[in-house]
């Protein structure tokens, strides 16, 4: 197999794995956070506003790790520097 095939294959497989593995942790964390927030709201409905706001900020923080993985896999798929380099070399 020449390098163009290897780079294409590895990029695609890695992009899939990155998003797959990278979304497990944040989804578990977000689930826990939302469950806890719902329990807190059920316990203290008066504090709904501040709980919701803190929840949103926290969710954004947790989610950003998944977003990093997504961005990395998007770069691997659509703006892969190694792929561009190899294609340019092969094209002359």
């Amino acid at each position, binding site marked *: 197999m020449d390098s163009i095939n290897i780079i294409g294959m590895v990029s695609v497989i890695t992009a899939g794995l990155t998003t797959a593995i990278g979304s497990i942790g944040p989804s578990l964390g977000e689930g826990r956070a939302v469950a806890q927030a719902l329990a807190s709201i059920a316990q203290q409905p008066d504090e709904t506003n501040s709980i919701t706001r803190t929840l949103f900020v926290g969710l*954004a923080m947790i989610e*950003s790790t998944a977003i990093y993985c997504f961005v990395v896999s998007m770069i691997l798929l659509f703006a892969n520097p190694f792929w561009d380099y190899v294609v340019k070399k092969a094209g002359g």
Partner: protein
Amino acid sequence: MDIKAISPDQVMIWQWGPISLNATIMFTWMVMGLLVLVSWLATRRLSSEVGLSRWQNLMEILVKGMRDQIRDISHQEPAMYLPFVGTLFLFIAVSNLLSIVPGYTPPTSSLSTTAALAICVFVAVPFYGIRNRGLLGYFKQFIQPTVFMLPFNVMGELSRTLALAVRLFGNIMSGTKIVAILLAIAPLFFPIIMHALGLLTGLIQAYIFAILAMVYIASGTRAHQERQQRQEEKPEEKGEKPHG
């Protein structure tokens, strides 16, 4: 934006010699122009009587909502922060929500726009911090609790700026990208649902960006207010504890 282009930076609208105009710059200016035009039109004839115009009503709700949020988060007078944080929120929200217009790609789906916004926050934090607490008071918080924490505090400052930029970029870019991919696979009905979801995400991201900017600014200006607050709040907390 087609499937291959990862950001609207790569979409050239117009080119003349070395001068080129890409989609990000054009749509950014369009959003800014729209905001200025609408707010100018709406505030041209303000009245303090009973009968309000619709636009004045909308503006009052927006400004009051933002002021209340800022006051809740920072426990300070919102007048000083409203121009900066409110502008961030309005710009991001409008540029995300306009994506229902065909042919429009949100400028926030380009990393350069979001990086610029994040750098604005990065500069605003010391600006407000120094203004509120003085030069020494602001820089003293970097060596809290000990001097050894200095590199970590600086790193935290930088990494949260990066996180702010990449979070907004990733969310909006993923929205447009998913719609583009679905248009190629199942063009009839499915992209509309994802588009609606994208609108929701866009508004939430605008809210979160503004809230986080406010939280960072508040954490840089807090110190003495916090001490005051703690003294005021302590009796209440003790009274509430038996309930919980």
